[in-house]
C-alpha cells in the first residue's frame, strides 16, 4: 500500500502542529466558536448531540494492521472503546474530547493517517472498490489512481472552497462495488481495444434531498489525462456551481440545470486549455504509485481446495459463512473475506477496540497485512488462502465477527441517526437492529437471498437509502419519528433511485412493513433465483403497495 514520503510526513506533521495550537487557543478562550468551527471542521472534528465526533480518513478504504491497531488504541484511550465504520469507508469516533484531539491526531500521524478533508466544501476521501487489487473481475487495481487523486486534491488551493462538498469514487470492474453513479465524479477504470488503460467518467450523481444518477461524460479518458480532465470538471463546477442555496450547490444540480451536453462541452473546452500540459501524468509517476500497490506475493496453496471441501462438509455453519462472506480472488487458491460488522441485532458498522485489534492480528496471520473498509460498513481481508479459511473463521467466531450475512437482509447499512447525529431527524440504529432480529434466522435469510436494506435518519442520506433495494428514511413529523419506505433502489452498475411506497410508518410498524414487503416478494418471485431487485423490476411497485396499504395506497 501507499507509504508516506517526506513531503506527506512533513505536511501532516505541520497540520497537526497548527491544529494543536488552534485547539489550545480555543480552550484558553482566545478564539471564538465562530472562528474555530471552520478550523475544527477542516480537521474532521464535528460537534454532535452528546460530544464531539472525529472522522478519520481511510483513503480508498485501505488499512494495514499497524493502522488498525492504532484505531483500536484510539478507541480505547480517547473514546469509549469502539468506533463506527462509515459509508464513506472512514471511521468515526463518537466521544472524543476536544482537549484530546491534538494527541489523537499525533497518534494517527504516527501511522500515516489523518482527518484532513473529512469535512468541508472540498474534495473528500476518494473511495474505491473494497475488493480492489484482489478481485477476479477487475482490469487493474484502481487504488493507484485514487491515491493520485488524493495527492492532487489534498489542500488544493483552487478547490478548497467549492460550492459544496465533492466526492469521487473509483472502480475497475464492470460490476460496480463502489457505487460510482451516486458520486460527484465516478470513474471506471477500463481498457480500450488496444489494451490501454483509461476511464469512463461519470459526473453529477448524488443522494441527499435530490437523488440523481450520474451521467457519463467520457467513455474513455486515457489514464495520462486523469488530472487534467478532472481539473476541468472541477473548474467548471467551481465557476458555475450554485453558491446561493446550499441545497442546490452540488454538481448534480449544475448538471441537471445546465444539461449534460452543454456542461460536457464546457468541460471539454476547459480541458483543451489543460490537456497535454503540466497535469499530464508521466508514465514514470503512474508506475511509481503503482509500485506502492504491488500485490503481495501469493504463493500456490492448492491444498486449500480439498481441505475447504472437507471442512464445509463437516461444518454447515462454516459452509454458509464461506458461501456468503468469501468471494472469488483472482488467484484461484485464495478468497476475499468479508468480515461482517452486522451481528444479528447489533449496530451496523460498529467495532470494539478488541475487535479491531483482532482483525489487525488476523490480517497479519492470514491476510498479508491488508484490511479494507467497505462502503457497506463491513471489513474485508482481501487476500486469504482457501487453506487458511477454517482457522480464520474459528478466530472470527471467537471475536463475534463471523456473522454469515454479507449481502443478505441483515447486512444493513445505517447512518448513526438521532442517537448521535446533530443533523438527524429520526433514529436509524434501533430500526436496523429490530429488522436484523426479525430476520436473524439463518435459514430465513438464506431463503430471502440478496437484499440490501439501507437506512438514513435524515434527508442527507448518509445511510444511502435512495439506493437500497429497500430504503428507509426517518423523518420528524409532528414531533415524532416517521419512516418512509422506498423500493427498487440500487447502487451498482444497474443503478436506480428507489421510489417511495406511500405514507410513512411509525417506529413500531416499520419492521412489520418490511416483513410485508419481503413476504410479497417471496410469494411473487419466479423462484429462488429471482432476487428481490430483479423481482421488483419485473412486477413493479403496485403489488407491494397493495400489500402495505390495501385500498388506502392512493391516499398517500
Amino acid at each position: 500500500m501507499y507509504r508516506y514520503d517526506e513531503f506527506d510526513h512533513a505536511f501532516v506533521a505541520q497540520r497537526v502542529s497548527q491544529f494543536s495550537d488552534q485547539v489550545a487557543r480555543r480552550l484558553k478562550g482566545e478564539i471564538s466558536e465562530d472562528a474555530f468551527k471552520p478550523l475544527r471542521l477542516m480537521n474532521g472534528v464535528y460537534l454532535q448531540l452528546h460530544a464531539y465526533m472525529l472522522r478519520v480518513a481511510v483513503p480508498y478504504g485501505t488499512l494495514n494492521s499497524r493502522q488498525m491497531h492504532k484505531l483500536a488504541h484510539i478507541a480505547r484511550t480517547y473514546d469509549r472503546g469502539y468506533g463506527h465504520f462509515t459509508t464513506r469507508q472512514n471511521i468515526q469516533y463518537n466521544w472524543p474530547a476536544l482537549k484530546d484531539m491534538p494527541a489523537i491526531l499525533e497518534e494517527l500521524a504516527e501511522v500515516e493517517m489523518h482527518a484532513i478533508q473529512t469535512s468541508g466544501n472540498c474534495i473528500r476521501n476518494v473511495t474505491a472498490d473494497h475488493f480492489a487489487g484482489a478481485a477476479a473481475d477487475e482490469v487493474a487495481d484502481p487504488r493507484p489512481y485514487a491515491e493520485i487523486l488524493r495527492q492532487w486534491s489534498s489542500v488544493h488551493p483552487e478547490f478548497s472552497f467549492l460550492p459544496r462538498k465533492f466526492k469521487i469514487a473509483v472502480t475497475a470492474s464492470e460490476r460496480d462495488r463502489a457505487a460510482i453513479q451516486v458520486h460527484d465524479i465516478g470513474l471506471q477504470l477500463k481498457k480500450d481495444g488496444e489494451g490501454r488503460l483509461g476511464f469512463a467518467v461519470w459526473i453529477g450523481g448524488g443522494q441527499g434531498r435530490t437523488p440523481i444518477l450520474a451521467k457519463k461524460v467520457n467513455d474513455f479518458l486515457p489514464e495520462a489525462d486523469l488530472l487534467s480532465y478532472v481539473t476541468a470538471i472541477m473548474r467548471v463546477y467551481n465557476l458555475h456551481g450554485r453558491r446561493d442555496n446550499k441545497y442546490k450547490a452540488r454538481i448534480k444540480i449544475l448538471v441537471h440545470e445546465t444539461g449534460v451536453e452543454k456542461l460536457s462541452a464546457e468541460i471539454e473546452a476547459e480541458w483543451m486549455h489543460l490537456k497535454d500540459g503540466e497535469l499530464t501524468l508521466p508514465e514514470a509517476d503512474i508506475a511509481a504509485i503503482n509500485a506502492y500497490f504491488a500485490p503481495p506475493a501469493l504463493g500456490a496453496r492448492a491444498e486449500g481446495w480439498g481441505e475447504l471441501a472437507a471442512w464445509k462438509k463437516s461444518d454447515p455453519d462454516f459452509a454458509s459463512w464461506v458461501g456468503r462472506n468469501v468471494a472469488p480472488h483472482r488467484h484461484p487458491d485464495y478468497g476475499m473475506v468479508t468480515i461482517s460488522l452486522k451481528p444479528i441485532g447489533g449496530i451496523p458498522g460498529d467495532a470494539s477496540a478488541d475487535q479491531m485489534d483482532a482483525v489487525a492480528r488476523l490480517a497479519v496471520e492470514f491476510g498479508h497485512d491488508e484490511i479494507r473498509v467497505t462502503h457497506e460498513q463491513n471489513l474485508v481481508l482481501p487476500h486469504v488462502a482457501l487453506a487458511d479459511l477454517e482457522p480464520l473463521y474459528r478466530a472470527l467466531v471467537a471475536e463475534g465477527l463471523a456473522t454469515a450475512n454479507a449481502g443478505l437482509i441483515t447486512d444493513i447499512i445505517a447512518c448513526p441517526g438521532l442517537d448521535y447525529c446533530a443533523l438527524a431527524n429520526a433514529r436509524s440504529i434501533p430500526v436496523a437492529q429490530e429488522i436484523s432480529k426479525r430476520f436473524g434466522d439463518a435459514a430465513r435469510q438464506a431463503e430471502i437471498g440478496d437484499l440490501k436494506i439501507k437506512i438514513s435518519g435524515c434527508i442527507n442520506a448518509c445511510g444511502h437509502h435512495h439506493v437500497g433495494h429497500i430504503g428507509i428514511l426517518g423523518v420528524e413529523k409532528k414531533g415524532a419519528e416517521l419512516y418512509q419506505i422506498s423500493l427498487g433502489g440500487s447502487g451498482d452498475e444497474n443503478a436506480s433511485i428507489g421510489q417511495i411506497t406511500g405514507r410513512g410508518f411509525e417506529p413500531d410498524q416499520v419492521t412489520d412493513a418490511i416483513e410485508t414487503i419481503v413476504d410479497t416478494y417471496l410469494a411473487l418471485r419466479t423462484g429462488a433465483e429471482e432476487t428481490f431487485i430483479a423481482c421488483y423490476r419485473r412486477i413493479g411497485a403496485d403489488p407491494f403497495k397493495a400489500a402495505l396499504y390495501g385500498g388506502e395506497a392512493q391516499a398517500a
Partner: protein
Amino acid sequence: MKTAPFKTRVLTANRLSDGVSVWLGASGEWVLSIRDAFLARHDEAVSAIEAAGAQALADNRVVDVNVIEVEETPTGPRPYRLRERIRAEGPSIDYAPVASARVSQAA
C-alpha cells in the same frame, strides 16, 4: 384572545472542553443531568437563562447553547423533542459495553 399555556424551559449546551451535554443548574453552574436543571417558569426567568447562556458562550465555557421546552414530570423535566430527550438520556441503544456505566451515571 386565548394565549397558549406557558411551557417550562431549560437552558442546554455542550461543554467546550469535551462536548458533553450540559444544562444550566439553579446555582448558575452547568450540570451533567437535566434533573438538576434550573426550570424557567415565566418570561423573566427565560430571559435570565438566555442571558446566562450568551455569557457562557462568550466566556468560552460552552457551545451550541439552546433554550428548550420541557414537561415537568414526577421524575424530572422531560424535553418535548425526541432529539433533546436523547441528548438528556444518551443514545437509546446499548452501545459498547464499557460505555454503559458512564451513561447511566450521566442520565
